[in-house]
């Protein structure tokens, strides 16, 4: 019973936390863009415009919910849900800290430490595409269908290098569990480098982060919603909170992807060269590991914003070319080299 309550608290906590991050991210995105672009950005709602996401939420909720007459109604409604649900669910297996000891009970800071966490992530990552395709198709709009088509091709293509980069990580750490991968990144190797995935898998990291940008539909891979080409892509016909759910799902997705990058490549909650567990109490260690983890996550969230306002967008054929001609061969090469290195050093 106790375990169930703890699990429930963890589920609610992480759900609220991820939601909060997504909400704050909309603000960070706009203020960050403003900072990069030499303009003030939203600064009227609350201090520094911090209440802007709330105002946006109220606006989206109170707007008229329009379903186009020729849209497939059921699918139209299902689209945003299918899109944001996997993004939320994927977070279930991603750790958000090490562990905390409360009342003599050790609580792992992770909703579910499943031993196939890796497969779960990959599976749910592929689910998000349905939300986009269904939404694009159900809208009965040519721009939406084009957006959906682009999304299908792009997400499926980039799933492969994404998975290949992860496979190499699995080879290195010999486990499918995200928590075990995170735990294994403590300490140093070769004497000086932190025992992080990015140092063991530099190529894998580059492949993963590029594929992650494509998976998240972010610039330079924002073709499914390329505003100047296909108006808004798959969510052209969406309005009110249905649009809000799409946009929201995108930020939740960013949060999950950033957490994955940190878990796989940047030592999860470990600080380089410092073992926090050795000098912090059980409770403060739990909190510290959580904070360190999210400090790293926020850096990658900021990176998403930074890149978005810096580079132009790829063209459709270039995205496909990069995926199939560059990332996948490199991913295979990386996998091969990793296997070879492990075989030789074993």
């Amino acid at each position, binding site marked *: 019973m106790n375990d169930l309550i703890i699990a429930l608290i963890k589920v609610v906590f992480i759900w609220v936390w991820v939601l909060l991050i997504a909400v704050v991210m909309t603000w960070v995105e706009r203020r960050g863009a403003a900072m990069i672009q030499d303009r003030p950005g939203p600064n009227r709602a609350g201090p520094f415009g911090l209440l802007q996401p709330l105002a946006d939420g109220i606006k989206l909720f109170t707007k008229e919910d329009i379903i186009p007459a020729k849209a497939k109604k059921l699918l139209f409604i299902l689209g945003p849900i299918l899109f944001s649900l996997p993004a939320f669910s994927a977070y279930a297996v991603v750790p958000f800290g090490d562990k905390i000891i409360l009342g003599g009970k050790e609580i792992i800071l992770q909703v579910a430490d499943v031993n196939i966490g890796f497969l779960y992530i990959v599976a749910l990552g592929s689910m998000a595409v349905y939300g986009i395709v269904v939404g694009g198709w159900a809208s009965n709009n040519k721009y939406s269908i084009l957006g959906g088509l682009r999304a299908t091709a792009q997400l499926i293509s980039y799933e492969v290098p994404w998975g290949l980069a992860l496979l190499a990580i699995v080879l290195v750490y010999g486990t499918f569990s995200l928590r075990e991968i995170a735990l294994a990144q403590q300490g140093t190797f070769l004497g000086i480098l932190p025992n992080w995935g990015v140092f063991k898998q530099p190529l894998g990291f580059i492949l993963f982060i590029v594929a992650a940008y494509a998976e998240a539909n972010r610039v330079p891979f924002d073709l499914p919603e390329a505003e*100047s080409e296909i108006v808004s892509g798959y969510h052209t016909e969406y309005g009110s909170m249905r649009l809000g759910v799409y946009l929201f799902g995108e930020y939740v997705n960013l949060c999950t992807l950033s957490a994955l990058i940190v878990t796989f490549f940047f030592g999860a909650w470990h600080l380089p060269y410092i073992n926090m567990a050795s000098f912090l109490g059980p409770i403060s260690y739990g909190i510290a590991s959580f904070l360190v983890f999210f400090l790293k996550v926020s850096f990658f969230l900021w990176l998403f914003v930074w890149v978005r306002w810096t580079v132009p967008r790829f063209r459709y054929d270039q995205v496909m070319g990069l995926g199939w001609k560059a990332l996948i061969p490199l991913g295979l090469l990386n996998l091969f080299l990793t296997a070879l290195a492990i075989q030789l050093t074993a």
Partner: protein
Amino acid sequence: MINHDDYVKINIGPSHPAMHGTLRVVAYTDGETVVSADPEIGYLHRGVEKLGEHLSYHQFIPITDRLNYCSAICNNVSYEMAVEKLLGVSAPEKAQLVRIIMMELARIADHQVCVGILGVDLGAFTPFFYLIIQREEIYEIFEHYNGARLTNTFGRIGGVEADLPKDFEQRWKKLKEGIARANEETDKLLTHNRIWMDRTIGVTTFSAEDALAWGFTGPCLRACGVKRDLRKDEPYSVYDRFDFEVPVGKYGDVFDRYMVRMREMEESVKIIDQAFKLYKDMPADAPLMAKVPKTIKPPAGEVYSAIESPNGELGFFIKSDGSDKPYRIKIRPPCYMVYQAFPEMVKGEMIADLIACLSSLNVIAGELDR
């Protein structure tokens, strides 16, 4: 002739984020590839030429603002010069210098908008802001001159209405640095960016012969490698006194058009510097207006006068029957000729290239439809 039933018809515009103004392109696509693209023009048709027949010569000046609204001053001056040619007068030297300074500022503003929007259309949003902040400074100068920012109604037939504002030198000094910085930042963000190069180099290339055959002028023609600039080849006003380069491209692709515009901004800065130096040497009480009667009644006859506007050769043909209103005004906008070749250019390219091409041609609906 293609069978349109085999392809998806996509209606781009007249209301679409990338259709600046109210352009409309009916595209037939095979997946992402454009099979044919037919521009449909006239959504911003206001009967400008016909209006001219019912307005006196002076009253037509504000109408010319609404042609290429990104650089209204060039339109004004072009029209005024045509009427002056018809009258056989020419503006005093000081007025010429003021005109050139303002026209070159307008050219910079126009190019800034074009380059910035090209970036936005290719997904790079940030350079647009760097450029538009400097354009704002240019508009401040315009505002100080006669109160208007976008539709300036600059100048009069026979000269200009006012001297440069007193603080021009100071503002120009600041603006010059701003323009250089904005261009440098744009250059850093875009020119050597791998994605930008992939998106623009070799996209919708156009040969010099084709460009000449289609009647291209301005940056689009120069991007194809033809060194033709009315300011150099058929100098009007006092352009022959200035030392400046005419940047040319080679392949006539989106990248060349972008580079030509970027470098033209630098040349314009040079021209303004030289013009302002000459202007400062003029006596303070030098006339700004030639002797022109209050009611302009040019002798019967016809005249064609063209200037190098930011988009190319902007010409005014005016036929007078000796009354106080023109008998006929015909405007030769640079966009119209360039836009004709658009279907040819984008055939077989991708949808994203269509947008990039349209953006780099800088088709302004106001000038196109008139």
